[in-house]
């Protein structure tokens, strides 16, 4: 169980996002005038953008990954809209071509001479905030299990699928630990399915990233999500270390793929698809 399989077009891996679209996501963050649902939409749009840029090459997107997004709230169903609606898994190149819309965002960058310049960049949007119904997280995990059972059979030698669950943690259809464990028991020859959790909370509590213990987590939902998060594979942990150290975060041996009111973009950035500039070089 090494998590060392080469990720390539002939042997792609898979990302499956589970996004909480329940009514409780309409609660506001305490620290900013923004709904949790907007926080979820931001996280998923940014993760998708990062993944696609990672696979972008000479004007095209290489199909290193298949992607799926399951929304859970009023119902549990594929969450892509527009041309991608209704489909469970889609090649990443197709996802790149079909955002729901393209926005312009302002980005501040150093100008290389000590100043700051503002530039306008394209920001693709696939998901808008949705908040309705209960939080059928167990059903979403079971649906992920069905999709990935078939996927790992088709791709026995692949780098294992990565499931990213973005939620406020308050499941309304039972205890998610059982379904999460069944999902993490699925495996390719290279390792078990990785389940990472991104906990979006309206609580006033310090952000937490990749803890190795549930002690000190702010509430029972965070503790439950910690328990259902995979241990970060060694090679990703070691590669992410340098980046996280800059922010004063230590990522220990048994660190889990769990964050609380923070993002987990490092777990994507440091997936190995070939030589990349070190984080100290990119600015």
């Amino acid at each position, binding site marked *: 169980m090494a998590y060392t399989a080469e990720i390539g077009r002939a042997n792609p891996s898979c990302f499956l996002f589970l996004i909480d679209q329940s009514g409780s996501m309409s609660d506001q963050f305490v620290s900013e005038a923004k709904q949790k649902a907007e926080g979820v939409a931001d996280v998923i749009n940014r993760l998708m953008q990062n993944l696609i840029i990672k696979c972008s090459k*000479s004007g095209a997107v290489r199909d290193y990954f298949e992607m799926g997004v399951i929304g859970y709230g009023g119902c549990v169903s594929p969450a892509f809209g527009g041309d991608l609606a209704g489909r469970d898994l889609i090649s990443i190149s197709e996802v790149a071509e079909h955002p729901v819309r393209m926005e312009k965002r302002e980005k501040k960058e150093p100008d290389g001479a000590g100043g700051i310049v503002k530039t306008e960049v394209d920001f693709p949007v696939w998901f808008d905030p949705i908040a309705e119904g209960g939080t059928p997280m167990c059903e979403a995990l079971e649906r992920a299990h069905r999709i990935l059972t078939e996927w790992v059979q088709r791709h026995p030698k692949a780098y294992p699928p990565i499931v990213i669950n973005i939620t406020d943690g308050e499941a309304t259809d039972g205890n998610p630990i059982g379904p999460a464990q069944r999902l993490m028991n699925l495996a390719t020859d290279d390792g078990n399915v990785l389940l990472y959790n991104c906990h979006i909370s309206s609580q006033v509590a310090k952000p937490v990233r990749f803890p190795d213990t549930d002690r000190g987590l702010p509430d029972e939902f965070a503790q439950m999500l910690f328990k259902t998060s995979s241990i970060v594979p060694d090679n990703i942990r070691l590669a992410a270390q340098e980046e996280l150290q800059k922010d004063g975060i230590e990522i220990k041996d048994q660190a889990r793929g769990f964050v609380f009111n923070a993002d987990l973009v490092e777990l994507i950035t440091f997936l190995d698809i070939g030589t990349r*500039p070190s984080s100290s070089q*990119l600015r």
Partner: protein
Amino acid sequence: MRLTAQGLWTVKKGNSAQEYEDGFAISTEHGCFAVADGATESDFAKEWAQLLVTGFVANPGCLRGTGRGKCRKDRILEWLTPLQNAWQEGIDWKALPWHSKEKTRRGAFATFLGLELDSTLTIGGPRWRAIAIGDSVLFQVQNNQLKMAFPFSQANEFNNTPELLCSNPYQNHVVWENVRIRRGNWCSGDIFLLCTDALAQWFLTWWERDTKPWSVLSRIEDKGEFEELATRIRSEGLVRNDDMTVVIVVVG
């Protein structure tokens, strides 16, 4: 000084020849040779690698006067800056899709290794000078013994975030302190091999096992034979699946 040289290359298994992202250039006339390895996770890296190697061999003597500090940086920028400009100008920015625009704005990245052979006699014999940024490696073989490996000399020194030279000057802020320059003497009969990382790692692995990998490489006559060797190397599982390139220079 009579020089013979050949470049051998093969693309990463599973990729097409158009996706080859290493580059190499040979100028026996100027005594200049170079290899570069475009980084997978950057865009238009193939073009950047090719610009670097061709730009280097077209500027003989560009490693003269590359002492430490500012002087070294200024000397390198003399030939590097026009290449960075050429890379920028070669991109049709308006035609790029959103994901490519974002990635290309960061610049293309590549490792670089350049070698100059000088026939001018100095104390100790005629000189060579080499520049290295990243993990492409120069080997000097003398009397059928490995005399020198630069900048790496052990197989365990490789990882997937080597130092890289960027087409965007702004991203080279950490590079200057890591530019490695080396000088030495050569004599008739020497063989120089400039290898990109996967092949260099294989070379050092086998050398550490008391074999002479240069003898395998210098017997190769064409691309077909090199591809057979690459297939064998990959099947040993000792190095990552990657483009492989070597420039072999024999000093007559």
